[in-house]
């Protein structure tokens, strides 16, 4: 495998983006959606996740390590491209550019989000609950920052899922790739709806 590093890293990057990071993202958005049922429902759901056994180990193995690799290698990938979608304005080429732009936006958003809602808890013992999110999101700038961050993250996941299917040779024919485009648009729509509803619920529902 030594002479095949690049192939291995690229495939690992593609895999980790979906499993486990993508799966975690979907789970995260589902749990957040409890905010639309009210503060108690959200706090109960968040508390359930917080009290999972081996929480720190789960976080490290399922989230931190895969996410770190995906992010660092992804920045390298993004900056070795020379985007040309103004010259070649095809749909997939725009998706290619957006995948790289949303990757960078998502990285900035996730770093901030992890600091605010996880490291603050680990370092200062800030309690993570409905009220914390309401306070953060009551500031208009942060609300829009979160809106952009959520849309960007879900786009990056949905479009990355499409590439995942090509990269691993699951969708080979143009027809299957088109159908996968529709499916991933559906994934994007559903999770964007869930993410934005949750954010709105935090600011309006308390």
């Amino acid at each position: 495998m030594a002479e095949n590093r690049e192939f291995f890293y690229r495939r690992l990057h593609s895999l980790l983006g979906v499993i486990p990071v993508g799966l975690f993202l979907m789970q995260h958005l589902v749990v957040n959606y409890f905010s639309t049922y009210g503060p108690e429902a959200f706090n109960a759901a968040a508390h359930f996740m917080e009290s999972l056994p081996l929480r720190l180990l789960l976080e490290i193995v399922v989230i931190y390590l895969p996410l770190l690799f995906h992010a660092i290698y992804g920045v390298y990938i993004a900056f070795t491209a020379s985007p040309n979608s103004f010259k070649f304005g095809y749909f997939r080429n725009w998706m290619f550019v957006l995948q790289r732009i949303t990757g960078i936006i998502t990285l900035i958003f996730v770093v901030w989000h992890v600091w605010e809602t996880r490291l603050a808890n680990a370092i200062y013992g800030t309690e993570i609950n409905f009220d914390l999110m309401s306070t953060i999101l009551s500031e208009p700038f942060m609300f829009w920052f979160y809106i952009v961050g959520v849309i960007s993250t879900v786009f990056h996941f949905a479009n990355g899922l499409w590439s995942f299917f090509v990269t691993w040779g699951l969708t080979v024919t143009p027809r299957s790739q088109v159908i996968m485009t529709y499916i991933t648009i559906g994934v994007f729509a559903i999770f964007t709806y869930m993410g934005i509803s949750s954010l709105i619920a935090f600011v309006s529902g308390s």
Partner: protein
Amino acid sequence: MAEETKTVRLIIQRQDSPDSQSYEEEFEIPYRRNMNVISALMELRRNPVNAKGEPTTPVHWEMGCLEEVCGACSMNINGKPRQSCTALVDQLEQPIRLKPMDTFPVIRDLAVDRSRMFDSLKKVKAWTPIDGTHDLGPGEKMPETKRQWAYELSKCMTCGVCLEACPNVNSKSNFIGPAALSQVRLHNSTPNGSMHKAERMDAVTGDGGLQNCGNSQNCVQACPKGIPLTTSIAALNREATVNSFRNFFGSDQQV
């Protein structure tokens, strides 16, 4: 006749040597019926005078077959990479802007050095060995339907348009580009060529290989020969997936 006074305007990006600065020069030449970009360039060679009426050096470019099968005359014509032999003046907006393909080093004016493509073909062993120390005999027959399918892949003329269109082929990466990948699929699929499949798959998953594809799918849109480049890439991806699992978990047998 009105036709005699009609002219064709060209704006050409020129460069005197590989290391010198490029500059633009404008030309105005008499229109003739059914002109293509090459016949316009030939007119400049016959009478190398620019639009200001100053004598200049004739514009240099490469050409071979003049019927879109050799790939030598590729250049950016009004912003799109294509062959200048099949770029008809009547179908182009004027002034016609000619630029060399910027993925490749310029030799002079519109002529570029496509060596990186030929090096890639060598790297991935995009050929079928038919000679040995002894006569290998005739190859196995191919089903006609498969031959027809493989023929489409064999239309590649190494023209460089897919590399020019690919955002991941640039000076920051050593990606070999779609053309060579599709050739691997072609040679892997023929009865004689498939005997060297393992070597090609090794090369294609090596440095600068298959994994550098970012799925922008510009190549398949840009290819003048309509080669299903992205299908070839996805098919190789599947093969590489199967191979890597088999090599890791399965057997040491090379196929």
